[in-house]
Every structure is written in structure tokens, then in C-alpha cells.
């Protein structure tokens, strides 16, 4: 019953996200026909193109058509080049995962110990540094990294070109700078977020007791503090999953990496609504799964605590 309710709520959220994105795309000035027609286009040509693309249909008919297709797994074709959206999305999504997954793992894996170090001793200078890093725009960071590691030192490529027909796995060095540019602020963000809960837990009696009993600090950190951080960590991880997927847009542009972010930027520019819709649905699904997973983790932990 509870599971059915959860799935129902997730499906409703997904529907609302798709609807909202569709309405916003429709509200943007100009449409795919105007943009494809270009400068020397007569109103007749725009009208013909609009009819050819199906853009002359009422908004609700188009949305219903898209929804019916999406329900069957058919995401339609791009208004720009007529290619099917689903394979295009998939190839861009997997390309972006090469950046997003390392960033996500690094942010959680490094951010948590950093939060413990700083939260334990209530380190003010460290916190200020974290705030500064978390606030750095990715584009500035990416630019700085390029200047240092590509231009001056020549250690890494300035643009992340993937070999023809291959993936980033064939040339892993192209991933270093984009991943760093995203992972640094993401790690700082996680660390800042968990610092408060760490101070909180460290101040509780069972931690003080353990320390008084002579249990080494690292053991206390892993056995007594870490389990209490799992619920906020799971929540943060869920939010970060969505955040990283969208933040790649800027970094992909700087490094010319052909991922989902570049596809998104172009689809907005050309008003390619099937591609936009597909992207929005995909990101929404990822975030929903992450949030549901975080809830499940919290529920399991709560169950254990209750059973104890």
C-alpha cells in the first residue's frame, strides 16, 4: 500500500515536471520553425515548416501526443534533424555519466571525511574556505584549471575531445579537468552540509562515553558517528545527483565535451521540444529514483533503530 502510494506520487511528480517543461518551452519566444527557417524566410515558408513539424497543432494536442508516445517508450524525433530522440538521449546521457558519476562519488567520498574533521573541532577557518570553494562558479574554476594544467603545465588537454567512434574511456585524461571543476565545489557543498550534523552527533553522550572508554578517535568516527550521518548523507546524495547532471552543461561547453548538457543548451536554443522533453523526463527520473532510494535508506535505518 505504502509502496503503491510512493510510486503513484513519483509518477505524478514526473508528469508535472514534463507538463511544466512543455509549457515553458511553448512560452519561449519563437519556435523551431522560425529558428530553422532562418533570416530570409517568408511567413509562408515558416507556416509550411510549422505544419511539416506538427507545430500548427494546439498545445494540448501536442502534449497529449508526446505523452502517449512517451508512455510507449517512443520519445519522438528531433525537430532540427529528424533523428529519433531516445538513442540520442541515451548516447549523451552515458557520455555525461563519465563525468557525473566520478563527481558524485568524489563529493560524497571526500566530502564526508572533510565534514567529520571540521565538525569535530568546529574549525572556523576551514569552514570559511569551504564556503569560498562551494561558492565558486564552475566556469571560473574550469577556466582556472585549464590555464594551470593545460596552458602552463601542459599536463592535460584544454578541450575534452573524445576519439571518433569511441567514448571517454578510450582517453580518460580528458575527464580529469571537467571532473575536478565540478567535484571541488560539490565536495565543499557536501562537507558544509554535513558539518552541522557531525558537531551535533559528536556532542552526544554515547560519543563522549566511547572516547572516555579509550576507543580510538577513527573507530569512534566510523562506528558511532557515521551511522547517524547516513540519513542526511542520503538526502544530500539525492539532491547532488540532480545537481551534477545539470551542472555539467557549463563544464561541457568549456571543454567541448559532447554530453547531455550541450544537448540541453542547443535544444533550448533551437526550441527542439521533443529533445527538451526527453531530457527533462530523464533528469526527473534520475532525481526521483535518487530521492526514493534516500527515503528507503532512511526508512530501513528507522526500522532498525525501532527494532533495537
Amino acid at each position: 500500500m505504502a509502496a503503491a502510494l510512493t510510486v503513484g506520487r513519483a509518477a505524478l511528480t514526473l508528469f508535472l515536471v514534463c507538463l511544466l517543461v512543455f509549457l515553458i518551452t511553448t512560452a519561449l519566444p519563437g519556435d523551431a520553425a522560425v529558428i530553422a527557417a532562418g533570416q530570409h524566410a517568408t511567413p509562408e515558408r515558416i507556416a509550411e515548416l510549422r505544419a511539416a513539424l506538427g507545430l500548427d497543432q494546439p498545445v494540448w494536442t501536442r502534449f497529449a501526443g508526446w505523452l502517449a508516445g512517451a508512455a510507449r517508450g517512443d520519445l519522438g524525433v528531433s525537430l532540427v534533424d529528424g533523428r529519433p530522440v531516445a538513442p540520442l538521449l541515451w548516447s549523451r546521457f552515458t557520455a555525461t555519466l563519465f563525468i557525473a558519476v566520478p563527481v558524485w562519488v568524489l563529493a560524497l567520498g571526500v566530502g564526508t571525511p572533510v565534514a567529520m574533521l571540521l565538525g569535530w573541532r568546529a574549525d572556523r577557518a576551514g569552514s570559511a574556505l569551504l564556503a569560498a570553494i562551494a561558492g565558486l562558479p564552475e566556469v571560473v574554476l574550469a577556466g582556472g584549471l585549464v590555464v594551470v594544467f593545460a596552458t602552463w603545465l601542459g599536463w592535460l588537454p584544454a578541450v575534452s575531445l573524445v576519439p571518433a567512434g569511441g567514448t571517454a574511456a578510450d582517453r580518460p585524461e580528458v575527464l580529469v579537468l571537467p571532473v575536478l571543476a565540478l567535484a571541488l565545489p560539490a565536495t565543499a557543498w557536501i562537507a558544509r552540509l554535513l558539518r552541522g550534523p557531525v558537531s551535533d552527533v559528536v556532542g552526544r553522550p554515547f560519543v563522549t562515553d566511547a572516547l572516555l572508554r579509550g576507543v580510538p578517535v577513527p573507530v569512534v568516527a566510523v562506528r558511532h558517528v557515521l551511522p547517524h550521518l547516513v540519513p542526511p548523507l542520503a538526502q544530500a546524495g539525492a539532491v547532488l545527483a540532480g545537481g551534477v547532471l545539470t551542472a555539467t552543461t557549463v563544464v561541457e561547453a568549456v571543454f567541448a565535451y559532447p554530453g547531455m548538457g550541450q544537448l540541453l543548451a542547443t535544444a533550448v536554443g533551437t526550441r527542439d521540444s521533443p529533445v527538451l522533453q526527453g531530457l527533462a523526463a530523464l533528469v526527473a527520473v534520475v532525481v526521483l529514483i535518487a530521492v526514493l532510494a534516500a527515503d528507503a535508506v532512511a526508512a530501513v535505518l528507522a526500522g532498525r533503530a525501532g527494532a533495537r
Partner: protein
Amino acid sequence: MLEMSRRTAVGAVFLLALGGCATGGATQPGGDPGTPVDGGTLRYGAVAAGGGTAVTDPHGSLFNESDWVRMGALYDVLTVPGDNGAVLPRLASSWTSEEDATRWRFELRTDAVFSDGKPVRAADVLHSLRRIAAKAVQNGGRLGTVDIDKSTADGDHAVVLRTTQPDADLPRTLAGVTFVVPDGVEGFENPVGSGPFTLSTMDGQTAVLARNDKWWGKRPHLDRLEIRGFADPQALAAAATSGEVDVAANVNPAAAKTAERTGNLVVSRRPGATTYPMLMRLDKAPFDRPEVRRAVKLAVDRQALVDGVLLGYGTIGGDVPGGPDVPPPARDIAEARHVLSSAGGVVLHTTTAYPGMVSAATLLATQLGEAGLKVEVRQHPPETYWTQVYTVEPLAMGYYTDVPFPVWVRQTALSTSAFNETGWKNADFDAEFAAAMAVVDQGQREAQLKKLRERMAADGGWLVWGFGDGLDVSSPAVQGLPTSTGFARIFLDGVWLRR
């Protein structure tokens, strides 16, 4: 707004990166290219929406420069543009027209073969032209005046094209765009062409092509051609600077200037590729008064515009498209002020579609202000500009690529044009233009057209202050890049790499 600030930030980052390059060792570019050598892979970067959503149909809307270059390598075309308005044979070995230039006969080469081994015949050409005509809405009427229903094949090695009106310039209109596919083919996932290269692999961003040893033409020097699409022009320039690509095609003047300053890259220039005219409407005040239009043309400092907007990569223009051969009037601020100080204030509309359109508008406003005309610049987003502002407002910026002059006239300067960007409607002009286009002798026709262009320059609403060069940035090893105008830029079979 957000988008703009992102772009600006990316630009700043790019300049930082290049600043670092300047400290590195600079090699001497250019010099004696030596004799061409065979071999090597050319990595060619061009701007493409989304980092390369590649279109496979050569006859529909070709959105990306990277798609054009790939089509030019895979497929043969009837004719290609040469230098100074000349037209060179390609798949068509020769062409003739009858007296009034409404019936054209193109003789085809007999030694061209498709990559599947079948010979290229007139039926294939006709099928391809029919597809281009059927997709006129998508490709913006690429076939010009051709009346496809009345056009026929004559045997296996000649096509006879009819036009809806006399068009002595047809071979030039068709130059570079008539990609020939085998008769009956409608799908292009595995392209079969008769061009200098064949497709090896293609993914979302990159197409890899190999030399076609069965091509009839001079054997290309390159073994392979890698065409890569870039969503961001700044990233494209950065890829060339850092040696990740050998050529960055069609970069903006700022990127070319930086590349030239750092000394590691060579800039090749194709004259007259882009123009940012100021358009005064003849049917709206104050530009309905000929003396106001004339005063505006006297007031502007064309060389300052070429230096400021095009960073010197261009030549000054004489207020009509088609080349710098029509000289502009000598600048006369005093005379201009005499008329303009009574004209009141005007708004100059422009758009962020192309970077030069905003900088040109700003500089023009300053210059006209010095001559007594108060000009306020107003910017519009590209999505609404071409449909709601351009051809509507009394004063607006335009954008021309290097389409042949007669094609441009039919688009926008005849009474019958679908839209007329300055309101130039003149029955005498229409008749004289039609007469000129029926003159088969090229020299005589160009002389007649030049007279018409001089009249447009003097009386029209176009302020064509300059012609910008098309700019390619490349490593010094790259030789033989196209230098002619128009679609000549997409044919890379003459390129070679110096060792």
C-alpha cells in the same frame, strides 16, 4: 541574460587560456609551403549545434557547417565556385545555354563512379535535383530558378535544366550545392557518393572519412579527414590553439586576431564572406527622403568600422552587395550634418544573433551622432528579430552571407520578392535586372549588373559599409585550404599536410 553572462564568462576564460599561450615559444607561420606531400589525417573542426547533431540527408536543411563539409567530401556536385565569381566544372564537365538563358545543358563526366561501383548517370543527377526541389521549404530554395518538372535527362551523360525565367547566372547559383546521390536512394545512413572521400565511421560529434581512390579527380593528398562539430565557438578556437584540431573553420575576428598574435597558428582569409549592412526603409520617415539616405552614407567612417567590427579582416564597401568594386562616396561630415541635424532622433534595431551586428550598430550610432543624427541602439533576441523587427522597423541591422548577387536580388530587392528588406520596389529596375539575367555573355552581363548596382548604391537604403572575410585558423602544417568565396569553403580535396 543568464545565457549571455555564461557566454561572456566562457569568453573571458578562453582569453585567459590564450594569454598563457603567448608566453610559450612562437614558431614562424607561413613561409614557402613546398611541394605537396601525400598522407596524414586532417582534423577539421567546425561549429555545429549541440556539438554535432549530424544531419544525413544532403538535400534538406543543413543546419551545421560540419554537415556541409561532410557532404562536400562525400558527394560530387555539378559546379563549384572559383575565384572572383568564376564557376568551375566538377561533375559537370561543361555547360551551355540557349539564347535567352532559360534552357541549360550540362554535360556530365563519363568517368565518375559511386562508392558502390555503379557509374554516375544523368538519372542520378536528376533524381538528386528533384529531391532538392521537393525539399525547397527545408533548404531555402537551393535550386533558385530551376523548373524541375520541365528538366530532363538527355542520355546517360547530359541533363537539360529549364528555368522559370532567364537566368544566365544559373551555374553559379548551383555551384557547390547540388549533391548527387544514386537514383532512387532516399536513406542516407550508409551514404553512397561519388565524391573525393567515403565515410568510415560517424558518431554524434565526429565523422571520419577515408580517401576515395576511385574518385575521378586529382587524387587527394590526405588519407583521412576527421570532421568534428563544436557547439561553442570559443571551445572550437581553444581546440585549435591547443593542437587538438588542425583547422578551426569560420572563427570570429577576435579568435583569429588572438591566434595570429600568439604566432602558433595561421589565419586564412576568404574575402567577402559576411556583411553586416545597415538597412534604411525607403517607405518610412526619415529615410523616405533620398537626401537623408545620402547624408547617412556620407557620414560614416567605413575604415573605422572595418577596423573596429571586423578587426581589419575585411574591405570597405560601397553600399551594395556583390563586392567592393563599387566605390563608396567620400566622407563629408559637414555636408551630412547639414541634412541630418534636422532629421530628429532614430532607433537602430539590432540583434545578438551574430556578434558583429551589435558592435557595428554601436559604432554606427556613435559615428552618426558625430554627424548630428541622434541614434539609439536597441537590441533584440535572435528568436524574434528576423520575424518581428527586420524589414519592419525604419532602421535595422542586416546580415548577408556571400550568396551570388542575382540570388540576393531575387530574395529581397524585386517588387515580386517575398519580402523586401528596404522597400526597394521599382518596376524599371525589375525589368532591367531581368534583361541583364538573359544576357549569356558574362562580361556584358556583369557590366549591366554593375550599372544596376551603382544605382542601388546611390539611391537605395543599404549602407553596406564593408565586407568581412571568412576566417579559418589552422596549424602551419595545413596547406591548400579553400580561399574562394561561397561554398568553395566546403571542398577540402586539395588540402595537404606539410611534414
